[in-house]
Structure formats: structure tokens, C-alpha cells
């Protein structure tokens, strides 16, 4: 019998999801321990974002189990589903900031209290991601891509959820801004003691953010291990992915040989 200490914060067992004729997830098994930062790598279209959305209940799964702190969360509805989602923050790939709201209302969207309290909390969270109070009243469209990512990061942590998902956190950013975002994520994970699940195909991001790495390919986790073991890994899929070689067992979607 496992002790409470050994219980994963997040666990997927045999998760399957099909879209039409395409089996995107074909038995994903994965566990993330409390306070751990796990990064899932994999090519475009391998189901990384789908995995996150299945966990959040945005996409129903076809088979398998998803457990958070030991409790099954598949099929939750109403208040139970809201309570499940309250345990997560999410940084979306494009930021997904609400265009019609100023920055401070985006950041404090899930917070309660008076407008003054929520604005103060938003400014605190903006400071945590390196942004000044002067951006609080701007619209998202007035910010650069990097600043939008920071605002989205501030929104993801604002309610202090115990688990945060980062969906391609550096996509579309220049290398310097990407490095700043990676460092911020690492600091937030350490400072706030959150459990983090990041999906990316940016290897620089993997090396900055990960405690442990898992590779998703063909709808399954084909390799997982600590970051230190990544470079010494002899799995040909992982080797091809981390070296970025066009030659190997992975065939990009739509490319015929």
C-alpha cells in the first residue's frame, strides 16, 4: 500500500482519445508528483495539448482514468467539475487573454472581492512576472507578444492553484524573451511550490523548466526520465527529437518518405 507521500498529484492511466479516424491518445500513462515540474515533449500534432485539455475536462476522454490527488476526475459535472478546475492554472499557447478587458481584469478574472482589491492583487501578480503597474490599465492588444505571455502567466498564478499547465510557453517568442519566460516559470514553480506540467517542443525550454521529461509519440508516453538522463537516453525517438534530425524513426505529419 502506497503512503500519502508517494501519491501522485496528477495521474493518467490508459487515457485514450480518438477524433474521427485518428487515434490521438492511445493509452497515455503518466504521473506527476507534488512540487515536480514535468515536461512533455513531442512533435506537432502528437496530442500534447489534447492531453492537457482532457485533464481539465475541456475534452471528454474515450477510455482510461485521470486522477488528481488520488480522486477520479473523469465525468465530473457542475460544482464538482468547477472544484476540479479550481486546482489548475493554465498558460495557453497564444496567451488567450480577453481582448475586451484591460490587463488587470484579465489577471484578476478568477479572483473575488471588490474591484479595488482585485486590481491590487492583479498589480501584485504582474510585479511577480516582472511587469509594472503601468500596464494594468492597458488592453492586451497594446502589449508585445512577450508581455502578453507574462500577463497570461500572471493570470495563471493569480488564484495560486496547486497545479499549473504551460502549453508551449515560448512559442512565437524571440530567444531572449523565451529565456526570460523559461526563467520566470522555473522561479514560479520553485517559489510557489506548485506542480507544473509543461508541453513544448522547444528543447531550450525543456532544459530550463524540467525536473523530469516524458516523450509523447504515437499516442503513448514512449520514454520518461529525469532531465539529467535525457541527453544519455538511447531511445531512438527521443534521440531524434532532441537532436532535431530529419533522419530517424519519427516522420513529421504530412511528410512521406
Amino acid at each position, binding site marked *: 500500500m502506497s503512503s500519502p507521500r508517494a501519491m501522485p498529484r496528477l495521474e493518467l492511466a490508459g487515457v485514450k482519445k480518438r477524433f474521427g479516424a485518428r487515434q490521438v491518445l492511445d493509452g497515455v500513462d503518466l504521473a506527476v508528483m507534488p512540487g515536480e515540474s514535468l515536461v512533455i515533449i513531442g512533435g506537432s500534432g502528437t496530442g500534447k495539448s489534447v492531453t492537457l*485539455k482532457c485533464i*481539465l475536462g*475541456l475534452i471528454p476522454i474515450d477510455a482510461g482514468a485521470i486522477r488528481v490527488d488520488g480522486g477520479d476526475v473523469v465525468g465530473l459535472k457542475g460544482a464538482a467539475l*468547477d472544484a476540479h*478546475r*479550481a486546482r*489548475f*492554472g*493554465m498558460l*495557453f*499557447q*497564444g496567451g*488567450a*487573454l*480577453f*481582448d475586451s478587458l484591460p490587463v488587470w481584469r484579465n489577471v484578476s*478574472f*478568477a479572483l473575488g472581492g471588490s474591484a479595488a482589491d482585485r486590481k491590487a492583487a492583479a498589480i501584485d501578480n504582474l510585479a511577480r512576472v516582472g511587469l509594472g503597474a503601468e500596464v494594468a490599465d492597458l488592453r492586451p492588444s497594446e502589449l508585445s507578444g512577450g508581455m502578453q505571455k507574462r500577463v497570461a502567466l500572471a*493570470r495563471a498564478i493569480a488564484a495560486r492553484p496547486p497545479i499549473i499547465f504551460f502549453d508551449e510557453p515560448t512559442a512565437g517568442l524571440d530567444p531572449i524573451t523565451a529565456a526570460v519566460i523559461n526563467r520566470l516559470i522555473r522561479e514560479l514553480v520553485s517559489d510557489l511550490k506548485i506542480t507544473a506540467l509543461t508541453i513544448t517542443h522547444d528543447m531550450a525550454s525543456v532544459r530550463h523548466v524540467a525536473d523530469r521529461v516524458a516523450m509523447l509519440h504515437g499516442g503513448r508516453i514512449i520514454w520518461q526520465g529525469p532531465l539529467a538522463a535525457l541527453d544519455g537516453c538511447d531511445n531512438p525517438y527521443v534521440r531524434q527529437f532532441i537532436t532535431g534530425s530529419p533522419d530517424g524513426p519519427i516522420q513529421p505529419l504530412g511528410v512521406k518518405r
Partner: protein
Amino acid sequence: MTALVAIGSAVIAALAAIGRLARFAGTALLRLVQPPWYPAQIAQQMWLIGWLSLPVVGLTALFTGSALAQQIFIGGSRFNAASTVPAVTVIGVVRELGPVLGGLMVAGRVASAMAAELGTMRVTEQIDALVTLRTDPFRWLVAPRILAAVLVMPALVLVSNALGVAGGWLLATQRLGFNSAQYLATTARYLEADDVISSLVKAAVFGFIIAVMGCYHGYHSGGGAAGVGRATTNAVVSSFILILLANLIITVIVFGS
């Protein structure tokens, strides 16, 4: 046999689409009667739908009322019935042209805007972000738009009716030689409560159609910019057709006997 299969498939697809639309509208209506509500969202939508549509609805009614008076005068003169201009104009405007043209103009302006806004929110993951922030998109996005459209359309159509009648009066008194006081007295004598009530009922129904079609097509938008474009076109075209169909049904029910 192939033709039968094609017809059967088309009928099944159409019924499925009607079912999806009915479920969408039903869910939105259910959210309207269950808290929490978002009064600020409702007020903003009333301003966007009502106040900003006033110029286009008002000018349409003014020009159409004038043109209608001119045509009735020409037609009536052929059998010595030119004096019917005020009576037929007010009946035509209040029963048909005010609500129908007002509805079509608002559909062109508002249904397209709703579909484009929600469609963009869908493809940029803003709707997913709402869900992860524990906000029901039906409560936050759809229900306020439907309620606002149903509330402001009757007010818009009242203005449309008044300006349509005013357009007829202006042309009749300035170009056709009608006495102003007599024109207005005849107008008031022939205007019945049923005309106004049916006009307001039509307006509310058209408002419901516009908001539901705009939100439905935007909410289910996909496929990037092209998908949003398709959603916008479908929202406008389906609104137009349903407004004209609903107008026919209400007219037959109220005035058919």
C-alpha cells in the same frame, strides 16, 4: 437508391443541426434564469446592439417610409384613392417594414459581429480560458447577448416605426400636398394596438434569432480565419432567413384570421 441515400443523409444532417441549435438555445435560456448573472455584460451588449444600431435602423426606416408613401400615392392615384397614403403607410410600416427591415439591418450588423467575436475567441482559445477560469461561457458570453437583443430590439423597432411614419409624413406633406394635421390624425386613427403589439413581439423574436444565430455560429467556429469568416456568413444568412420565416408565421397567426 443513391439519390434516396443522399436525400436521407441531408434530412438527417438537417435534423441534427436543428437539434444542436435547439440544445444551444435551450442551454442559453436555462442560464438566463439561473444565477450568477453578469449585469455589466448585459448592459454593454444592450449598448452595442441597441444604441449603436440606432443610426442604421433609423435611416433605413426614414428612407423606406418615404419611398412607401410615394409608391402608395402613385398606386392609389390610379383608382382615385391617393388619400389612403397615411393609413396604408402606418399599417405597412408598423406591421411589416419597421420590424422586418429593422431586424434585417440589426442582423447584418450584430449577428456578424457576434459570430466574428465569439469565433475569434474560440480559435484563440479564449473560450477555453474562460472555462479554466471557472466561468461558464454560456453565462458570460451567450446569455447576456440573447437577453440584451430581446430587450433592445422592441425599443429599436419602436424608433424604426416612428421614423418610418415620419418619413412618409415628410414626403407626403412636402412633395405630395398633404395637410400635416390631417395626415397625422389619419395615421393615429388607423393605427391599432394590435399593430403595435405584433410589431413589438416580432422585434423580440427577431432579437432572439439574431443573438442565437450569431452566438451559435461563432461559438462553434473552427478552422482559423477561414472558419471565422464562414461562421460570420452563416450567422447573417441564417438570421435573415429565420427572421423572414418568423415574420411570416407571426403575421399569419396575428392577422391571418
